[in-house]
């Protein structure tokens, strides 16, 4: 067992009294299952999460959405516990539980009084290897998944834009497919498809257990050994390395659906932590996203919402942690009297400005100060603490990155921010999607289409 005292927290260390500093311990079971424990003794509560390295980006064409569908079926029983029993047991112990699927991972979690942690682990271990995929249960549950898709995508104009945006931006990357899957694939999926998917990916050597809360690492280690230790391993197939071909020109797509408000998304392909030309690039991109949209004093609010008044809202999103390279995404809604085209021009100008000019050191200072404060605020949520570790471990990164990212941000210079803008925020690298509202009172054919993100079971 390796216990790491978070000396590397540096800046946070100055602010956080020692008592609250979370100890993180990690170890590996003999079957290859990774366990990470984060102590937080504020309340007699624990969050337990089991993370699997599988998600929609692992899926071949034809069975998109299978990881998410399997997540739903994970509540439908094993040989020992019948359909729904998992949820009933956790519920009767006062716990809450659910699961989420993304492009790069599938995770199952319980929040529960600490004395019941062992029961949660026992149940999770059981469904890691012993799931029953009954065709009759599957037929009902896949209907539920299709309803979920209707709710989140078919009937949600911005959800449709998001789905089409990704579908045209990526030519080869599996990020082109929605997490929930294309409707056609959901209509042709079978219980056998899921059984094969389950056998391939659900094994201790493809999983990470993260426990955060009022626990002692040794006790968690004993419990994990007891319940997960004897599970057999699988030979986890190596994924072929995907590579998105270099984009060589702007891509545009329109989504014409009944709606009341236009909407715009613009995405530039960008590198991520662990896969960038230079290690500081993702941190410079994060700073850039925060300079544009890190609050009401950031540039978009200052210049586009309050200044020119072109935008009712405008945002910039960049996720530095993912399995495959992603996008730096700008989005927004124009005010009445302004068009989506004008908003697009305004966002392009904001991007041109960061390509041409250095950001103000005061902006950089503000971004770092906010990040430092947010680290403290995030420690208020057990769930977020566990999730941060689970994401990093499941992506094959090190959870310690979460303790060094403040230092990495502090090291970013205005020149580096300009450099990443010049390298990546260029027109040849851009995809633009616009929502063109059709009248709401006119029945339109409802074509199958749309978006991912996180899905509760």
């Amino acid at each position: 067992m390796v216990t790491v005292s978070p000396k590397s927290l540096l800046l946070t260390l100055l602010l956080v009294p020692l008592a609250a500093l979370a100890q993180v311990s990690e170890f590996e079971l003999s079957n290859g299952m990774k366990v990470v424990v984060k102590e937080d003794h504020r309340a007699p509560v624990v969050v337990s999460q089991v993370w699997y390295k599988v998600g929609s980006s692992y899926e071949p064409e034809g069975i998109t959405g299978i990881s998410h569908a399997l997540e739903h079926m994970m509540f439908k029983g094993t040989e020992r516990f019948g359909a729904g029993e998992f949820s009933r047991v956790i519920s009767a112990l006062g716990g809450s539980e659910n699961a989420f699927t993304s492009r790069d991972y599938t995770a199952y979690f319980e929040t529960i009084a600490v004395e019941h942690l062992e029961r949660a682990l026992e149940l999770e271990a059981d469904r890691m290897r012993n799931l029953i995929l009954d065709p009759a249960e599957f037929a009902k549950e896949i209907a539920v998944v299709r309803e979920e898709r209707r709710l989140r995508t078919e009937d949600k104009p911005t959800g449709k834009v998001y789905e089409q945006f990704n579908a045209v931006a990526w030519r080869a990357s599996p990020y082109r497919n929605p997490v929930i899957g294309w409707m056609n694939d959901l209509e042709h999926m079978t219980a056998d498809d899921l059984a094969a998917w389950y056998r391939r990916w659900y094994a201790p050597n493809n999983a990470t257990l993260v426990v955060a809360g009022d626990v002692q690492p040794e006790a968690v280690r004993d419990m994990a050994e007891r319940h997960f230790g004897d599970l057999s391993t699988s030979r986890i197939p190596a994924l072929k390395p995907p590579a998105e071909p270099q984009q060589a020109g702007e891509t545009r797509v329109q989504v014409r659906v009944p709606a009341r408000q236009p909407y715009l998304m613009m995405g530039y392909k960008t590198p991520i932590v662990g896969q960038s030309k230079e290690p500081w690039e993702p941190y410079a991109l994060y700073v850039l996203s925060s300079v544009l949209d890190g609050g009401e004093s950031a540039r978009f609010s200052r210049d586009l919402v309050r200044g020119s008044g072109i935008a009712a809202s405008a945002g910039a999103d960049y996720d530095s942690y993912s399995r495959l390279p992603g996008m730096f995404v700008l989005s927004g809604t124009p005010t009445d009297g302004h068009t989506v085209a004008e908003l697009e021009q305004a966002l392009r100008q904001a991007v041109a400005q960061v390509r041409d000019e250095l950001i103000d050191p005061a902006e950089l200072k503000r971004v770092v100060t906010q990040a430092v404060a947010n680290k403290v605020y995030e420690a208020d949520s057990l769930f977020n603490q566990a999730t941060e570790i689970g994401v990093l471990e499941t992506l094959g990164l090190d959870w310690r990155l979460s303790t060094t990212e403040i230092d990495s941000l502090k090291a970013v210079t205005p020149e580096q921010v300009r450099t990443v803008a010049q390298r990546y925020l260029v027109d040849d690298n851009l995809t633009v999607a616009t929502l063109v509202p059709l009248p709401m009172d006119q029945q339109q054919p409802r074509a199958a289409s749309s978006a991912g993100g996180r899905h509760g079971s």
Partner: protein
Amino acid sequence: MAVKHGWVLLVLLLAGGLVQAGPSVESWHTSRGAKVMFVHAPELPMVDVRVVVDGGSARDGGLPGLSRFTNAMLSEGAGEWDAGAMALRLEERGIQLGSGSLRDMAWISVRSLTDADVLAVALESAQAVLASPRFDQDAVERVRQQLQIGLRHSLQSPGTVAARRFYRTLYADHPYAHDPDGDDASLSKITVDDLQRFHRRYYVAENAIVAIVGAVDRKTAESIAEQVTGGLAAGQHAPPLPPVPTVSGGELHEAFPSSQTHIYVGQSGMSRHDPDYFALYVGNHVLGGGSLVSTLGEEVRNKRGLSYSVYSYFSPMRVDGPFLMVAQTKNDQAEQALKVMRDTLERFVEDGPSEDELEAAKQNLIGGFPLRVSSNAQIVEYIAMMGFYDYPLDWLDTLTGKLAAVDVAQVRDAFRRRISAPAGIAVIVGGNG
């Protein structure tokens, strides 16, 4: 016995069941009359302050959306700082400012590190935001647009359309009838004068609750409360709300360009001080309140695969809030889903929960209590709510005992008296309606 998170976990087996002490809540009034609720949480070097006023949309009068518009203007410039200057002075110190409003309440929330210089700016700003919003004309017009656009955006969802119609029908001419988002016509005509008048009337000390959770001692908390409310006039508490009207049930259909139909079925429910509060609350947990375990979930989702998100709830408010069952399904299954929901409710009202079902629900609610007060963010919301609805300070301590005391006969009796399927209103929005 362990002392953790500023609260003492005492597990005592009494005749009535489990008693668990919640966070230790202290309360006092500021010099101008605002009620303060405080929990000392020393572990993290941060503090949460939430100020709630009885100034939600139930106080909109003839101008739907006025409460929310006023609330949104608070962070758009106050005192000597215009919107940009205020945002900058908060954000360059990592201070977070939030605001919001519902039917009963409107609030601002501030989260700051306890570092003295930072906290001083947070409190000075909060005082200005609460007491001295500028209502600059350009900011008013900008926010008006944002609210109108936000409203249009939400009306793209058949669920929002159905919920609004449900409330309008259930509450008729009662102030709960309209949505806190208001409507386009009203948002168009609200003036700066309307906003200032609303602010002067409801953002006053006698009408405010200050909730504080964080790594500050009682003395510091007292000065925080004084400072945050320092600019407020004493004023008066908002008057009582009228009782909710009795309306007859019925089915309302509305076409919508959607592949799913959204179903809202319900009727008048209960108030925050309802004598049937715990019987209805625990009973509903069996019926449709548990997240993955409930009778409605079993009948609509698990057995028939009709809906992804199906649930029921009582929304307890100052006066009777609604009881609602909600589901959404593809258009050609809407009738079937509605029938299953109604039959399930009818059976539940007739038979009540089984002993086992009730026991399981109570175990979930009681055993889950520590989870719901495990972060500062949760605790500050709880104590603000307790202060707002005049709950006793030991409300959290006695909660589990009250849950434990609910039995099957009480649930059945309460549901039979309070919920009758024929009185229900069904709003069905989607497809051809």
